[in-house]
């Protein structure tokens, strides 16, 4: 055989050529050439399908083991749904706690407003009675009450805003819950797939060239289950 010398590729000695290639090159007519070419291609395909089949079998075993671990541990069937339920409970409890705090702020806020208004009214009345010791004392107390009521309003406002932690943590818990649900579905699908594969375990791949066609079908069927 002469290699393409224009590319500078080295020439191979005829003895180094594979038997099937020698057979192909030695074909005396178009019919035997086609036959030799088909045989060559079949051998190459067989090697490829054999490798793919081996890969598919290994993947199948790995999936089976993983699914078995998942089933044994009850991860998809019990642990994940239980974890999601608990997360939901935590969210619900945090929501109740935040609402309970808001109940308190809503109840006290109008009280603080009323105290501030009443203290303001009393301060004005006491100012009109300047010199009366009792009025002076009452005026001072009213001033303290007004300052206290104002501080209460500010504090209650801060308490109200602080409850936004529930919204922010709740959003994160929702995201985690969503992720867990997706993971659960994937694991259940894996278990289902492994079960399906276990019921139709791949037949052994024949090593003889004559069995190539059936092996290819078997490999194709197996690969189809993996979405090939």
């Amino acid at each position, binding site marked *: 055989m002469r290699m393409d010398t224009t590319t500078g590729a080295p020439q191979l000695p005829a003895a180094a050529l594979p038997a099937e290639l020698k057979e192909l090159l030695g074909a005396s007519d178009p019919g035997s050439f086609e036959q030799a070419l088909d045989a060559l291609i079949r051998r190459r395909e067989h090697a490829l399908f054999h490798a793919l089949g081996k890969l598919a079998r290994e993947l199948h075993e790995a999936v089976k083991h993983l699914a078995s671990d998942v089933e044994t541990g009850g991860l998809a069937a019990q642990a994940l749904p239980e974890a999601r339920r608990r997360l939901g409970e935590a969210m619900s409890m945090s929501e109740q706690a*935040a609402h309970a705090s*808001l109940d308190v702020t809503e109840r006290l806020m109008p009280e603080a407003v009323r105290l501030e208004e009443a203290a303001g009214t009393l301060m004005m009345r006491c100012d009109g009675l300047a010199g009366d010791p009792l009025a002076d004392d009452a005026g001072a107390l009213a001033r303290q009450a007004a300052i206290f009521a104002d501080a209460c309003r500010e504090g209650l406002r*801060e308490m109200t805003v602080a409850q936004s932690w529930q*919204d922010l943590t709740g959003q994160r818990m929702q995201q985690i819950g969503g992720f867990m649900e997706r993971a659960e579905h994937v694991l259940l699908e894996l278990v289902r797939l492994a079960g399906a594969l276990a019921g139709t375990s791949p037949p052994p791949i024949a090593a003889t060239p004559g069995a190539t066609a059936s092996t290819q079908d078997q490999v194709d069927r197996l690969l189809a289950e993996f979405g090939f």
Partner: protein
Amino acid sequence: MKILVVDDFSTMRRIIKNLLQELGFGNIQEADDGATALPMLKSGQFDFVVTDWNMPGMTGIALLKAIRAEPALKALPVLMVTAENTREQIIEAAQNGVNGYIVKPFTAVTLKEKLEKIFERLATAS
């Protein structure tokens, strides 16, 4: 002034409602997502919307787009109060005509300042 507060978390709706009441706004209604809010806006003669971004069903940004696309609502002021704070999201909200953007967690002072700024701009524009 009639205000609609839109958030999927009842806690946050209550917080915003309380703060708005503290600031003197008494007529406040609530919706838990954009899909609930939109028909309310179409029939309710609201003057202002405070909305979250991330909600199931219809999100806050989708609600904003729907408001701007509706001839009867397109001038309605919208304040977004959200934990979503990426540059792209803020730009998207701005490009769709949001009137104000508050990032959670926020303070009562921030809410007051943003509201005042929105009303100032609206008064200048009209």
